[in-house]
């Protein structure tokens, strides 16, 4: 379809690929910028700590640049019309995370801890694997609608991924949350991060089919549309599953993430505000209910309500059988000592948070060393990624792509909210990782895959003249007229 349009008058205009800018050069320019910023930060850390430019600057800069270049070439080749912002934004966050992890590696205090490992080289390796996964997604996922075929398979996969950490011998209980599986010889893996994506695929496929039933067959009651009981089924099942995660894996964050993602997608699919009301009520009831008997969650809530008391209890070595955490208070102190403009790279003391300083609490390091100004910039960058995802959902032409894009960006936004809110003391702390910034292989891999899928959807959405998919006969058929 070369899409030639004959206007009523005898003027011919071609609407084709020429009109729509692919914006790959914008992406490249931003990407160069996004690589230069972490290199600057890296040099800054070295200068602040040792008074000299770190020896690894060249290799680090080249490494990050090379990875970004490979990702850019893959986008140029396999998704030429994709959104120009997603890749640079993700690259910048990943690069800043790497610098911050490397900076914490230099801390003498953390090096003296018994289970210290130099995390930065590993994180660079994970980043390389993540970019590789991103490229693989772009190459093999030619059309995101293929995923629609695997709606129920992905539900099954997501459930398996979620249950895996509970399997005896495979799961590992690390600091009170059972969200890890140990693979002998490879290290540990957090299947919940991948379940996020797989579950979004299931929700999108399911809601695309069921949304009319959910939206239209409802009774009006006190200004709210109440769905029928049988339509309420799936939301109850998802709610039950997320509560079960909460109970058995004691993982508040993941359960909030899944339930929140489902409610967001349900709202987008049905346009019914009542689902939001139901969702909030149900998650509040579930959280309160579980918190009333689960000691691990109770501690988290205690630490949230009164971090100073927890800190003192932990310091005085209170022996009441509960693991008290001083980290919540320490994170708040880190933010406080950072002030508006921060102490500067390498000059903070967020290593006092000790373990998890480079994973769950990495935002506290940013808060101390870059200050409010830096954290706001980072949160804005997250916001821009989410905005591009929502924009992609708006532009997507097929309902499945719309729902998948909104689900993935919603999950991303929720994860940022849950982690940042937890570290800053807005909500109870949960053991989740800040996407791209925090140290952790599963998180980096899963989030690069997520960005890959978003880029694939945005490429399809922004492609100027859609090639008629699924109708190959149109070109083959020749009409032969008797002359």
């Amino acid at each position, binding site marked *: 379809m070369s899409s030639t349009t004959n206007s009523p008058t005898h003027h011919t205009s071609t609407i084709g690929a020429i009109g729509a800018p692919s914006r790959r050069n914008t992406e490249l320019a931003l990407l160069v910028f996004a690589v*230069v910023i972490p290199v600057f930060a890296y040099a800054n850390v070295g200068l602040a700590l040792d008074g000299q430019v770190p020896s690894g600057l060249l290799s680090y800069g080249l490494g990050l640049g090379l990875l970004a270049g490979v990702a850019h070439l893959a986008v140029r080749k396999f998704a030429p019309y994709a959104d120009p912002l997603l890749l640079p934004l993700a690259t910048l966050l990943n690069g800043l995370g790497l610098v911050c992890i490397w900076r914490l590696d230099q801390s003498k205090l953390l090096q003296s801890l018994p289970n210290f490992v130099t995390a930065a080289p590993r994180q660079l390796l994970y980043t390389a694997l993540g970019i590789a996964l991103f490229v693989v997604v772009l190459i093999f996922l030619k059309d995101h609608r293929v995923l629609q075929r695997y709606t129920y398979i992905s539900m099954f996969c997501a459930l398996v991924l979620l249950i895996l950490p509970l399997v005896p011998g495979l799961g590992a209980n690390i600091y009170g949350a059972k969200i890890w599986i140990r693979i002998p010889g490879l290290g540990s893996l957090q299947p919940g991060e991948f379940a996020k994506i797989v579950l979004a695929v299931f929700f999108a496929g399911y809601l695309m089919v069921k949304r009319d039933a959910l939206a239209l067959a409802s009774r009006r009651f006190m200004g709210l549309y109440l769905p029928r009981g049988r339509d309420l089924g799936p939301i109850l099942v998802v709610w039950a599953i997320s509560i079960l995660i909460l109970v058995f894996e004691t993982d508040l964050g993941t359960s909030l993430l899944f339930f929140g993602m489902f409610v967001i997608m349900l709202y987008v699919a049905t346009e019914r505000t009542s689902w939001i009301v139901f969702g909030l009520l149900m998650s509040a009831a579930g959280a309160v209910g579980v918190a009333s008997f689960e000691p691990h969650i109770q501690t988290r809530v205690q630490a949230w309500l009164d971090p100073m008391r927890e800190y003192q209890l932990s310091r005085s070595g209170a022996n009441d059988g509960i693991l008290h955490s001083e980290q919540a208070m320490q994170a708040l102190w880190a933010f406080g000592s950072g002030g508006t403009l921060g102490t*500067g790279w390498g000059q903070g003391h967020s290593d006092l948070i000790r373990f998890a300083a480079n994973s769950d609490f990495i935002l506290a390091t940013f808060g101390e060393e870059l200050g409010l100004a830096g954290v706001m910039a980072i949160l804005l960058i997250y916001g821009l990624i989410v905005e*591009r995802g929502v924009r992609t959902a708006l532009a997507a032409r097929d309902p499945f792509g719309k729902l998948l894009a909104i689900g993935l960006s919603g999950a991303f936004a929720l994860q940022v909210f849950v982690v940042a809110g937890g570290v800053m003391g807005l909500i109870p702390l949960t053991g989740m990782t800040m996407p791209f910034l925090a140290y952790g292989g599963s998180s980096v891999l899963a989030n690069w895959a997520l960005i890959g899928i978003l880029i694939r959807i945005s490429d399809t959405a922004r492609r100027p003249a859609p090639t008629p998919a699924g109708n190959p006969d149109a070109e083959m058929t020749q009409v032969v007229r008797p002359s």
Partner: protein
Amino acid sequence: MSELTLTVMRLGFLAVLWLFVIVAVQVIRSDLFGTRVTQRGSRREAARPQQPGRQQARQQAAPPQQRGQQGGGRRGRNAPTKLVVTEGTLTGTTVALQGQTITLGRAHDSTIVLDDDYASSRHARIYPDRDGQWIIEDLGSTNGTYLDRSRLTTPTPIPLGAPIRIGKTAIELRK
């Protein structure tokens, strides 16, 4: 390393980080409003919005008079710059006049989609002629288009501020 250098680097880094955010927002901005005017074949210019569906429909309806119009609002001092809906369900809607044809009707691909039983699916269109004067033309609607209480029979230039009535909707051109 001297204290001064580190302070400069610290502030410099924050500045660079924010510069990146601002550049990214600028890219989004150009993405939102980046309509491109492309010349093709017969030197006709057409504004290209992002959604191809609508774009195609608008171009089909675009009259030849658009030729020579330069996209922006540089047509002289008294040229209208926007079209405002003053009555009806769409009250308050404005459409910027940038040399493009505006179609009115119940059809979904109209520029202004009228939700009105008295409107035809392709009711009327508004377009600039060679001199940049805006013209309204009734497209053979059932209930007619009224310019200042007189029913239109031929394409008519629109004076500034004169109400155009279609069913319960009234629109006018403003500076």
